[in-house]
């Protein structure tokens, strides 16, 4: 079963505009949510996170919103830049058996056009 879903495989936006990437989850036991960014031939790199007790976290051009009742989170990038073109993975953390496990979505490929 897919506990973390990113329903948009790709997204294309113009430079300077807002990029909104969405993520839905099904497991209410997740306590922490993260976004990772991945360039081709590189490993994912951490971008921004949010605790389940908050509804917003902002870091420069990146803001993550969490709607716990809807089990939905989104990543906003404002303004979008061509260097933001990458695959973005949503991940959720679940504590189980004394360890914390990350569950990843399938990713959304963002293309920012100059």
């Amino acid at each position, binding site marked *: 079963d897919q506990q973390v879903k990113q329903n948009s495989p790709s997204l294309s936006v113009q430079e300077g505009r807002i990029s909104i990437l969405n993520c839905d989850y099904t497991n209410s036991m997740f306590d922490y949510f993260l976004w990772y960014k991945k360039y081709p031939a590189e490993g994912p790199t*951490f971008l921004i*996170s949010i605790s389940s007790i908050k509804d917003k976290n902002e870091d420069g051009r990146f803001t993550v919103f969490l709607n716990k009742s809807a089990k939905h989170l989104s990543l906003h990038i404002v303004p979008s830049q061509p260097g933001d073109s990458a695959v973005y*993975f949503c991940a959720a953390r679940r504590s189980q058996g004394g*360890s*914390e496990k*990350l569950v990843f979505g*399938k990713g959304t490929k963002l293309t920012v056009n100059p």
Partner: protein
Amino acid sequence: EAGVAQSPRYKIIEKRQSVAFWCNPISGHATLYWYQQILGQGPKLLIQFQNNGVVDDSQLPKDRFSAERLKGVDSTLKIQPAKLEDSAVYLCASSVLSSRADTQYFGPGTRLTVL
């Protein structure tokens, strides 16, 4: 600070052959993870080590996959024998503490193709 190192970067083998991947985590990182990322999917955790002990291997196909972390530093992941469905990128990650999920640092991965 040097990042997580992995080798080889690419590997092509035939089904039923054996293969091994190597990972050198960031110095001082106690926790090491191996993930499998199949094309079009997100990374899936295979095994997690805390120092040289296994914390979670619930998703590791133990009939063909094995992993070890000698002396709590480097780690190797082995597949024996390989199947077509094992074609994927194998990612190694490390962190200082397992309780901080945002501090997982990933290596570049090893792309395995099984023919």
